[in-house]
């Protein structure tokens, strides 16, 4: 394995193909039996395809950083910070791990964070107004006040932006959603100068075009540096025999 020793971080985005292409089959042979079983458990075809897409890309991405074949990337789970069980943060095996990563996918879009220090990412489809009204009272008091000051349309975007920051942070610290949602303030607004809880840099990530359906965020340990780039992975990154190394030399 050959990974840079200085602090670094990268973010990658990938759009899910509309359908599973018959001519250029996805590189599913690079997935583990567990991953294939999980993919097959999805009820709807596009959910299955998104899972396959995200996990093929994840293995290929990590493989490019680690300079090993995708199937040999040693994925594991760190101990749960709450109970010590084997269902904590997903990680590359190693003590210390050669790099840190985080993956999120939602409604056709996947976001990958790869870093020299703990990282969390989240991407979400913008929820309905009804969902926002229902869920806002679960947040930190100050976050609630900030959202409730906004108009209906702004509120949906603001909630989604805030939620992705919160979930990225909770993934970054390793607790995930087991931690109380009201415990941490992630309500940074643009230009406020607030960058997240102590020891963390948390911010939203641009992930769309003018037709914005998704919002995304990343949380980085202060031991890392802000992402050097936010790159889009090409569609053929997913196909057997396709491009397997989108990374140029500066990300190694």
């Amino acid at each position, binding site marked *: 394995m050959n990974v840079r020793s200085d602090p670094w971080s990268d973010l990658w985005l990938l759009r899910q193909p509309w359908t599973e292409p018959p001519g250029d089959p996805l590189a599913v042979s690079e997935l583990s039996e567990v991953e294939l079983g999980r993919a097959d*458990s*999805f*009820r709807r075809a596009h959910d299955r395809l998104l899972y396959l897409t995200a996990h093929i890309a994840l293995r290929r991405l990590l493989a490019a950083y680690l300079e090993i074949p995708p199937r040999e990337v040693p994925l594991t789970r760190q101990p749960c910070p709450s109970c010590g069980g084997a269902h904590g943060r997903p990680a590359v095996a190693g003590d210390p791990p050669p790099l840190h990563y985080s993956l999120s996918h939602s409604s056709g879009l996947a976001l990958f964070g790869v870093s020299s220090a703990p990282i969390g990412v989240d991407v979400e489809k913008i929820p309905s107004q009804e969902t926002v009204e229902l869920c806002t*009272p*679960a947040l930190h008091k100050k976050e609630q006040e900030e959202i409730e000051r906004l108009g209906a349309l702004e509120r949906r975007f603001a909630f989604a932006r805030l*939620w992705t920051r919160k979930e990225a942070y909770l993934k970054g610290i390793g607790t*995930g959603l087991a931690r109380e949602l009201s415990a941490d303030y992630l309500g940074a607004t643009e230009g406020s100068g607030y960058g997240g809880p102590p020891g963390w840099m948390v911010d939203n990530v641009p992930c769309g075009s003018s037709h914005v359906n998704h919002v995304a965020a990343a949380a980085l340990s202060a031991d890392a540096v802000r992402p050097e780039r936010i790159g889009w992975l090409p569609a053929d990154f997913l196909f057997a025999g396709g491009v397997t190394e989108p990374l140029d030399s500066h990300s190694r």
Partner: protein
Amino acid sequence: MTPASTFEERRTVPDLETLRAADIDERIRRIVEFVCKEMRITLEIPPEEDVDPTQPLHTLGVGSITALRLKRRFELDLLVEMDLVRILRAESVSELSARLALCVEDAPMTASSGTAGTVRDECAE
């Protein structure tokens, strides 16, 4: 904001007294129906597609925001608190509904908490 009154016409909120009076099988059946309907609305599942109550929730497309929405529905409509992770890791809608049914049965609402029961075993797998 008045979340409990929004889109009421599309929803079927179980009556708590009726639920408590029903036997456990009937209570579970009604809660399964409620949860499936809630998921259909949130996940925009078309009427011709079933929500299979025997499947794990994540396989039906339930993510973090949908799980939070379900959690809030359980608090508002069933007066039951359930951890978000428990919802996300539920083996099925049926299993989740059975847990909810037991909480609805076992714990009358208290003035201090405003909730009937609590399911907190977020790290159990």
